[in-house]
């Protein structure tokens, strides 16, 4: 969730970076320092998108899918089963989680491509208008996918919080 939030914060910056670099064109080139910084920004976005999806699929999702032992009546530690136990909340799993678990993966694929094209072409994107359009469109789709995923995640967490496997105590009152 933390990676996802950082990623969402960085999105508008990424769109601005791509657009500004392409609009500036090849006549006014950024300095070496600016180029390095912009590349670092795009690589960081791609890396954050991978960290978000990988941690979601391989750390959080198994906790969400945990199967309770037979006879368990308190399902609060088993979010998927808790949601499915009532027709009033089952939609959060059947529509929410089933959409979220897949749509999130469009983002790292799109952002890795965007980072590659940006680094490869840089200011030359001004000469490749259709490529720039594709890069901006994929960035927009990645934003949409992340927003859907994050929003559903927040609602799911309201209805059936994922508490994790082993108990982690950050603070305990005396």
């Amino acid at each position, binding site marked *: 969730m933390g990676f996802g939030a950082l990623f969402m914060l960085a999105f508008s910056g990424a769109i601005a970076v791509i657009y500004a670099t392409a609009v500036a064109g090849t006549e006014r080139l950024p300095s070496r320092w600016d180029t390095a910084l912009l590349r670092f920004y795009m690589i960081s976005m791609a890396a954050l998108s991978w960290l978000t999806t990988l941690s979601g699929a391989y750390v959080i999702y198994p906790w969400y899918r945990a199967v309770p032992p037979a006879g368990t009546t308190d399902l609060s530690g088993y979010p998927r089963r808790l949601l499915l136990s009532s027709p009033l909340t089952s939609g959060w799993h059947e529509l929410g989680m089933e959409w979220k678990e897949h749509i999130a993966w469009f983002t790292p694929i799109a952002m890795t491509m965007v980072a590659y*094209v940006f680094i490869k072409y840089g200011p030359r994107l001004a000469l490749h208008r259709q490529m720039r359009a594709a890069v901006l469109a994929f960035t927009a789709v990645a934003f949409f996918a992340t927003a859907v995923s994050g929003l559903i995640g927040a609602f799911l967490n309201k209805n059936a919080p994922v508490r994790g496997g082993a108990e982690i105590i950050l603070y305990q009152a005396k």
Partner: protein
Amino acid sequence: MTEQPELESLPNGPGAAAILAAGIGSLALGILAFAGDAVHFLGRLLSFWPPSGALSGVTTLAIVVWLAAWYLLGRRWAAREVAIGWINLASFAMLVVALLLTFPPFMDRLQGK
């Protein structure tokens, strides 16, 4: 920003390869997600890592398809100019189909549920 000499031009092939591969990878993700949901046997087969279920196989295979497509297209188009308008169109079409295939109400309708 500082004034510098103009950059040498680059063919659009490498960028087009990356864009088309992203479309292909996305479509692979959509098809595998749909197949895993529609066919229980496939769903079990795609469960590469049981704690994450079919999602582990769906995403692993989609990434393999995406990277393989990128590698092959990248090699083929490394120094070429290609018709990027059509490539953009094909990539977006694949992306839209993929988004639909991962949307549960659409998945269910296709399966006649």
